């Protein structure tokens, strides 16, 4: 006989993890309270309270600085990430299937894995100028790697039998790549794209801090010059929200597009 949990009433049921929305809200409220209490022991220039941060957000929004920064950072990420994906996916797919190509490409990727995007910023500025191009180039580099490695590993490790089945059903090698390998690799590609997007956020902020006068990264870094600590906090929170929103949109679009795939998220 299976054991029944002891009936401790409705109040307890809220805390046993069966109500995720409640638990999330609770965590949020507790964090905000702890933050407010913590901030009350400090000065607003050192550690601003949630209210001060909200105020900074409102001011920055009214002045148009924040919406503009959001727009610019999103634009850089979206363009850089899309281009990175478009370049990485086809090459990685072929490299994953053809060992000879994999052997040529892999050493380069293994080497550059240890070169963080920001290390290339100086060269990117030298090559592409101080404008949008250099920032976008950094994002392309960032997402290209993540997407490439995930896609190649995915394409290399898919089950051989669907590809063989397709060949025996009359598919050519090219058709197998397009109609079997590609769809079978879709989950791995999407994981790579999702992770690549996360890294793109990191890269764009770093690039904007070092070499930009616009964008959320710039806004955060610039705030320190005027000791507007609340602005920096506002920027950081905005960044988190931007990432969350981007991920949410990505997931819901992808789920709709790949309805029939078993997606890992």
């Amino acid at each position, binding site marked *: 006989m299976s054991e029944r949990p002891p009936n401790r009433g409705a109040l307890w049921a809220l805390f046993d993890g069966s109500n995720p929305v409640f638990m999330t809200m609770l965590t949020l409220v507790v964090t905000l309270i702890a933050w407010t209490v913590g901030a009350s022991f400090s000065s607003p220039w050192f550690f601003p309270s949630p209210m001060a941060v909200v105020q900074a957000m409102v001011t920055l929004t009214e002045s148009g600085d924040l919406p503009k920064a959001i727009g610019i950072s999103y634009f850089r990420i979206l363009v850089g990430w899309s281009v990175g994906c478009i370049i990485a996916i086809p090459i990685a797919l072929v490299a994953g299937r053809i060992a000879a190509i994999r052997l040529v490409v892999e050493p380069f990727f293994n080497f550059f894995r240890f070169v963080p995007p920001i290390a290339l910023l100086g060269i990117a500025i030298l090559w592409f100028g101080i404008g949008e191009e250099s920032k976008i180039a950094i994002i392309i580099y960032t997402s290209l790697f993540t997407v490439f490695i995930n896609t190649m590993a995915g394409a290399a490790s898919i*089950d051989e*039998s*669907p590809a*063989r*089945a*397709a*060949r*025996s*059903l*009359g*598919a050519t090698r090219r*058709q197998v790549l397009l*109609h*079997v390998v590609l*769809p*079978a690799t*879709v989950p791995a590609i999407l994981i790579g794209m999702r992770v690549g997007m996360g890294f793109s956020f990191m890269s764009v902020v770093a690039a904007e801090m070092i070499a930009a006068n616009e964008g959320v990264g710039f806004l955060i870094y610039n705030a320190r010059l005027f000791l507007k600590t609340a602005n920096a906090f506002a920027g950081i929170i905005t960044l988190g929200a931007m990432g969350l929103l981007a991920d949410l949109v990505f997931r819901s679009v992808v789920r709709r597009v*790949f309805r*029939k*795939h*078993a997606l890992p998220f």
Partner: protein
Amino acid sequence: MHPAIRMKGVGMRFAGGRRTPPYQALEGVDLEVREGEFFCLLGPSGCGKTSLLNLVAGFVQPTAGTVEIGGRAVGEPDKDRGVVFQSDRALFDWLTVEENVAFGLRIRGVPQAQWRAPVDELLRVVGLWDHRAKLPRELSGGMKQRVQIARVLANDPDILLMDEPFAALDAHTRGRMQKEVARIWEKWRRTVLFVTHDIAEAIWLADRIGIMTKGPGSHIRAILEVDLPRPRARMDAAFVDLFNRLTDAIELEARGVEHEGAGV
């Protein structure tokens, strides 16, 4: 007339890698499968049955000897040789049952007006009509193998290669699938090369049974004619007699190698 499949002195050696020693899976395989016959390859596990089937399918090339299909040397995998795999992962996970079955026809550019009718008919024949809009992951093991069979039949191949298609199914489902394959085959009548280690399954389905020796260097030891009327009854005296003879033969095969192994 040429036999449907002919193998002469076929050897299959896997080169091995840095950590895996080379392995001679097949050696001196001679086999002739007649046009339209149901041929079962029977042998202990790991005797190279699947390697032999992969050679006929064209997935791998022999390292010695020749493999011919209808008198011509076997080439790349093609639609004339349909394969039903043991693993249900061979299905296209991202396509519905119907799309899986229509895959071969669609990939070859057959317009929907022409593939609609045969695909619909096959879905009914294998009992998947009500499940045609489902995805493979929503199906039971038995249903997935039906999809595999229908997918291959839709392509109307000359030869059907079946690699232990029911090994992963439970006994009850396996019995039902065997009956269905027998029924479908009697209707369609094409050459079938069916790999199994299940003796009863082989007797139930085959016109002839080829008994393979245990590896390394497997070949076909003997070929047995199954001269029982169809549909076959499992408790028939002739069935049981054949079953016992095959069981002894296979056991001898498996044990013989153990003795050899002990001597090494």
